[in-house]
């Protein structure tokens, strides 16, 4: 369990980093938090000739919150984002999901952007990018571009990033006011990769369901979101049957069995978690309206 020899590059700037990537191409691999990459190297499942370690690169460790987005730099650790109160206020979903990302020691080191660039559909954060309809910012020696989430994930562990590109940040889009969110997953042990996980965003308007979306962990090839508004639109969140999206969920997922759970079991979990997260997201949406009314109350 020792990695094969590699050249370690430690650039200090994005420009230096992408210059190295341009030079080494397919022989290079970006090292950020290393929580997935280092075990892979130690088990010699991959032996890249060059590691481009971006931990010394300046300017990648910020979380910035705007009216529309939460922008997360490539060196922001999961724990940093998890504990970022402004980000939580803007997009509670992130913390709701992040507490499920492995264990605290892994979150202390692992990065949110790294998790998304790794594109493991068993990871929580790719599914969050999908549900928020987010964007990946990519930089290469020759160009910069923004990649919409729909164009980013291409397959299991595959993205549209080229070997020359560095993902310098991701931007999670904030939901419309009055949206409630929820994330739940089921793993064999606390902190393990989920057998299935579901994120839900529900917006109510004038006491009725206006918008409902889901995204999934571990039951799809690529992270993507599923709009289930048509099933619930116009209904009252207190009386709606949240299991009514089951057919849509079944149609949207393609779970695979492994030694921990069969495909059928994962599908059952996805349907059940969709029901639970939709209900919780709706309750939060209703509560958000209530809070808004309460805080506006005295001023009105």
């Amino acid at each position, binding site marked *: 369990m020792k990695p094969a020899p590699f050249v370690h590059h430690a650039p200090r700037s994005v420009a230096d980093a992408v210059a190295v990537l341009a030079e080494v191409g397919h022989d290079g691999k970006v090292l950020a938090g290393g929580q997935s990459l280092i075990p892979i190297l130690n088990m010699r499942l991959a032996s890249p000739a060059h590691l481009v370690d971006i931990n010394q690169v300046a300017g990648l460790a910020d979380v910035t919150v705007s009216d529309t987005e939460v922008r997360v730099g490539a060196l922001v650790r999961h724990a940093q984002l998890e504990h970022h109160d402004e980000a939580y206020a803007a997009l509670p979903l992130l913390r709701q999901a992040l507490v499920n990302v492995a264990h605290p020691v892994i979150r202390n080191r692992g990065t949110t952007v790294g998790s998304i660039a790794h594109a493991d559909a068993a990871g929580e954060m790719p599914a969050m990018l999908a549900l928020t309809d987010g964007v990946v910012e990519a930089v290469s020696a020759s160009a910069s571009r923004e990649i919409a989430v729909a164009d980013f994930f291409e397959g299991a562990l595959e993205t549209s990033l080229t070997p020359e590109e560095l993902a310098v940040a991701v931007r999670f889009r904030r939901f419309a006011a009055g949206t409630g969110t929820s994330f739940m997953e089921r793993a*064999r*042990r606390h902190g393990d990769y989920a057998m299935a996980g579901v994120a839900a965003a529900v917006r109510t308007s004038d006491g009725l369901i206006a918008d409902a979306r889901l995204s999934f962990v571990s039951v799809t090839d690529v992270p993507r979101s599923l709009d289930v508004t048509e099933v619930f639109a116009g209904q009252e969140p207190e009386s709606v049957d949240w299991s009514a999206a089951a057919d849509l969920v079944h149609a949207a997922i393609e779970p695979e069995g492994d030694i*921990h759970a*069969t495909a059928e079991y994962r599908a059952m979990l996805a349907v059940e978690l969709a029901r639970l997260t939709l209900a919780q997201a709706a309750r939060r949406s209703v509560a958000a309206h209530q809070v808004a009314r309460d805080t506006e109350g005295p001023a009105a």
Partner: protein
Amino acid sequence: MTTSMFGAPIQRKEDPRLVTGGGRYLDDMGHRALAAAFVRSPHAHARIVDIDVTDAFEVDGLVGIWTHEDLPGKVGEPLPLLIPHPTLTHGRTQFALARDEVNYVGEAIVMVVARDRYIAEDVCQRIRVDYELLTPVVGIANARDGSALVHEDVPGNVACRMLQEVGDVDAAIAAAPHTLELELDIERSACMPMEGKGVLARWDTDKGELRIFSSTQTSTGVRAAVAAKLDLPLAKVECIAPDVGGGFGVKINHPWPEEVLIPWAARLLEQEVKWTEDRREHFISSAHERGQLQEIKVGFDEQGRILALDVKFWHDNGAYTPYGIIVPIITSTQLLGPYKPGAYRCEFWSLYTNTVLVTPYRGAGRPQGCFAMERTMDAIAEYLGIDRTEVRSRNFILPEEMPYDHGLLFQDGRPLKYDSGDFPASMAKLKALVGWDDFAAYREQAEAEGRRVGLGIGCYVEGTGVGPYEGGHIQIETSGRVNVSTGLTSQGQGHETSFAQIVAQELGVPIGDVFVTTGDTRRMPYAVGTFASRAAVMSGNAIALAARNVRAKALRIAADALEVSAEDLEIVDGIVQVKGAPGTRMSLGTVSVMSNPLRYAFDDAAKAATQFAGSNDPNKPPVADDDEPGLEGKDFYSPTQATFANGMHAAIVETDPVTAEIRVLRYCVIHDCGNMINPMIVEGQVHGGVAQGVGGALYERMVYDESGQLLNASFMDFLMPYASEVPHIETDHLETPSPLNPLGIKGAGEAGCIPVTAVIASAISDAEGFAITSMPISPVELWELRQRHARGEIPSLARPRHTSTSPGSAPVPPVQEAR
């Protein structure tokens, strides 16, 4: 006054050192040593056709590459079969490096030594081995089928068939009013110590001496094994177990291939060589356990009393049998638990498979046996409609029947004879602790909330403290420091504390003055090892006896010096004083000075001693003919048989009605290991054991595919429970002393894990309303069982009764005969 140390729940002396990074484990040593790595078989069953190392030679930093044909003499012979048995007719062991055939994925084929481990692994990657694939035998069913063979000279893959019978089982079953049959299945798991194995060897060319450090449970065993393999006099080999990060059984098997090869390479190269096992190696090339298929037939009367028990089981022993058939023998004998079975017959077959070999893992065959017996008890209770605790109680061996001889031979080849135990008292305590009689009300309330809960129970008896012997040596320095050594090793049991408590108590010294060394053949060359819940019983008693010898000598010397009778003296806080006249006194340090006529006054104790110097009688030698210099004592403890501890566990589980996830809400333990040296350490042992038991019941299994690949050889996929998966453990103790040893103690090391699988299966069965017969169980498996149950493929259980019924008032059993 010296406060009583024996029985005190004092904190462990070793913990400040261990938890602040002061531990010195195998890989903390030998940083300049050459590193070894191994090419291991990627195939479960294959013939080695060719090994090509040409590509490997060019790697900078390579020191040497060896295959079997390079191994001289005994190094190239099969490893020893440690524990032969007359019924082990087809015992097989592996070569240190495979000769011409590999029999499991992970079997070592080539050893590489290089400047560091990185380079050694680079070299391994460049070595090409050509194989001719053979049919792999994976799983007990395939091994039993026997159409493909692991070893071509072992027909039916049967290493051993063993039969023990007490009474006439066939007649008793034929005469029994009721019979039931059960088929049970228990999966593989493994010890998984935090620290894997590891060996560091130093060869002193000038002296021709070998010093081995091994992360082992038996340094005396490794020393003798290596001396034999390398044709070295025992006097020229020392073995030291440094701090060891857990063993749980896997490090009692010896010598492992690496324990022979690393010392051999160190001598050959005249350089220090080290091998530290990595986690993948530990998964695929150390040892596993559990793994049995069982068939049980039981005959019983209207009261649920067992009249005859007929057990057959098939035990997966993996590819080789270096540790003999200890595990299935223990299953076959300890299965009986606290019960009188009437007539009993147990027949087992120990079978070869092309998988990692099987050696004892904490519990060592008992969890399997307990599972068989306790599932049977639940089945009888269900069939007769009697409370599960009641059926058990009616079958208990009673305190007045002790000692109780089952008429069988135990693992040590001696009679299976329980020395003591009060099973009805344990049961009463357990029922009170878990609230057995209140559970029906609790369930009713839970079900009203849409929750599904179940209550389970399991009882066991554990033979502990098997011989043949251990020794203790105690020496008191002139400073008053008490050095204690015993030969068996420590892997985290807290020996530095519990053994010190015994010595502090026996000698009358502060525990802070007592320093314990274990597992160092330089300090105590005669020892067996730490396994089978034997350290406290064996070394604890040996150390107590040694302390009594030292105490007697100290009193004799002090009595002379103080001119009083030894009977009038006592030792308090390290001071020998006259009872009732504590002004007449001398310290044990001073006694130590006086015990050694070589009286250079190096220290204050020696100066102080001069006031007691008597006349030098020129007609007597300075050391009397029947005496020895020094305030030292040594003794050995060697019992006639094992001492039997026992315990009873109960759990309340909740299963999710939709997802079938299983949560342990409460876990209750009644534990009886006789007198406790340190209840806090005992409690820790029980907690750790239960945690491993929970792993075995709900999480851990070795997932082999049909080709013999272990699919979950990492901690990502082999699911040991985290702290978040282990329930809070509620414990209560009973202390029924053993009449067999001076301290009245029984072993506690394995206790916690033994009944957990049975208890959880019992609780899930209770929650679900159908019998669980295969363990461990995962949510997906329970979910699938529910579907089969719904389709009528699995019969329903009647709702168990949780009210206490006395004998004679048992409800009328159902009319139909059980199958």
